[in-house]
């Protein structure tokens, strides 16, 4: 696990949502947090190298830029999990993929140019694996706002 001091936590809690949109964002961030641009960059380099920060960039709303997304569930036999997960992950349209043991154990999100493409991928996966993929598109969205409160 990555060691985080108070300033690291402060940076992480800030830049999830309040990353300054500025041509010199790290300088601005440094001003807000009371440290130099160099120190911000040095800390972020470490945080990124060690995996605490995956990336700093846009979280794209697929449905607003032309496209659709969905959640897919599938029940994969225990001994085929790695193979099937690789097969699913090959698609660039797959944005998240997790093992969550239950009635269906592999759960992934698809985000594609449109519904036709989603159906095409699911049909292809079914052909390749013989498994039944359960398509669970959003009916109503009540909340989306991943923000980790890092303690």
């Amino acid at each position, binding site marked *: 696990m990555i060691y*985080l001091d108070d300033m690291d936590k402060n940076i992480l809690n800030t830049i999830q949502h309040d990353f300054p949109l500025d041509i010199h964002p790290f300088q601005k961030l440094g001003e807000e947090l009371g440290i130099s641009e160099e120190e911000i960059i040095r800390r972020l380099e470490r945080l990124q190298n060690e995996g605490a920060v995956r990336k700093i960039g*846009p*979280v794209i*709303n697929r449905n607003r830029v032309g496209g659709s997304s969905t959640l897919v569930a599938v029940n994969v036999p225990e001994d085929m999990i790695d193979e099937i997960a690789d097969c699913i992950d090959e698609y660039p349209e797959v*944005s998240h993929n997790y093992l969550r043991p239950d009635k269906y154990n592999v759960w992934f999100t698809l985000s594609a140019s449109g519904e036709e493409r989603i159906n095409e991928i699911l049909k292809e996966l079914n052909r390749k694996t013989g498994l039944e993929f359960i398509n669970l598109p959003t009916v109503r969205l009540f909340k989306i706002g991943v923000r980790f409160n890092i303690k």
Partner: protein
Amino acid sequence: MDAIDEQILIATQDGIPLTGSPFRDIAQRLGLSEEEVVERIRLMKEKGMIRRFGASIGHRDIGILANAMCIWNVPEERVENVGRIMASFPEVTHCYERPRRPGWEYNLFTMVHSYTREDCEQVAARISESTGIKDYRLLFSEREFKKTGVRL
């Protein structure tokens, strides 16, 4: 979305460089000023094409190891009300209604992230109490196969 916005999203979706002027290269490539690039990002955010611009956290790497998808069986006529209550919990990061399928009656999905499984279970119990929804399950992620986020 015009072609320039699309190019900006493609250029930044895997992360901006950690430099003093992280938008300079993109601006040069697209024949824009850095200010124009930043302004376009701000506008895309305002229009909802970008949900947020900022850091994606490797939550497992920093010890937020428990991540539960809570699934709830909510009567049709209560979905709107219950969905709102669930969304109001700060521990709930996502809340969606999804369709029922043959043999699958869970129609509300909430994501809860926390440091421990017990934390997640307690949050779910509190949600159950305040909504009256008793038929629910917690699906904990045991492995992460992929987490790239939405890419164009």
